[in-house]
């Protein structure tokens, strides 16, 4: 399917959220059919609706020293971390025109991620009951969405650079005791964000039909 694609580059979480909501209104009002917003965030911890505050393990001082703010957001899920070494993607889709099924949408996002990773030579999987994408039982991509009148926003983050995964120790990611991994760790080398964006654009288009 066709959609608008935006690349916001390295951007503050709040500014990206504002753009997300602008695009959300465009999709909701059917001025554009759907959109994918790509970006990378300055370090930030976000808390979904399910977050137990005890899942922030870092002290306030540690967060201040690291200049990492903590924001409550309207997506589902628990605590997560965003940083510049991740590719964060906000798919704004009108499920009224696809399938009015929230879990179907989550599974399609996982499928697009797994196919993109496969294209890089990484064997990634879904684990039953654990939304997200995993490599050898370590999480490489996290998903949390919001849906209003069957239009989606928020989305997923894919860990690209290994250095950024260290900041996940500041929280219990998704409220679980899990290890995070990255494309760099899985491949043993860095990759270009541009190639990843192109691959995800293609795979999301194929999955959302």
């Amino acid at each position, binding site marked *: 399917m066709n959609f608008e694609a935006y690349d916001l580059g390295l951007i503050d979480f709040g500014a990206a959220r504002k753009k997300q909501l602008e695009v959300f209104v465009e999709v909701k009002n059917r001025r554009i059919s759907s959109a994918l917003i790509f970006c990378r965030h300055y370090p930030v911890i976000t808390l*979904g*609706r*399910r977050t137990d505050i005890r899942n922030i393990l870092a002290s306030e001082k540690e967060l201040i020293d690291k200049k990492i703010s903590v924001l409550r957001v*309207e*997506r*589902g*899920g628990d605590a997560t971390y965003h940083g510049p070494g991740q590719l964060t993607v906000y798919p704004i889709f009108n499920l009224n025109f696809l*399938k*009015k*099924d*929230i*879990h*179907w949408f*989550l599974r399609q996002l996982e499928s697009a991620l797994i196919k993109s990773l496969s294209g890089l030579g990484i064997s990634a999987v879904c684990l039953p009951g654990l*939304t997200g994408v995993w490599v050898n039982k370590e999480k490489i991509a996290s*998903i*949390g*969405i*919001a*849906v*209003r*009148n069957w239009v989606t926003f928020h989305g997923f983050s894919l860990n690209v650079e290994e250095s950024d995964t260290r900041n996940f120790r500041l929280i219990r990611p998704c409220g679980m005791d899990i290890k995070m991994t990255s494309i760099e760790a899985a491949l043993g080398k860095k990759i270009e964000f541009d190639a990843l964006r192109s691959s995800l654009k293609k795979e999301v288009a194929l999955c959302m039909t």
Partner: protein
Amino acid sequence: MHDVVLPELGEGISKATVSFWYFKNGDAVKEGEDLVELATDKATFNLPCPKAGILSKINFNEGDSVKVGDILAVIDNSNN
């Protein structure tokens, strides 16, 4: 009186948790306005008011688990 029922949300989703109500008992509501936010494991979603009227009864509190088919609230639309 009009029941506000939790609709089908997709395959494999039988329940959700009430995040919060946008209105309280006795408030006037318009059709299509956000009435309640609900959450599943990885998604939040809204339920819009199916009818205009007065929100006469809220059956579930914030944090409660609700099932598909449950009557979440009742809207008194007798004056419309």
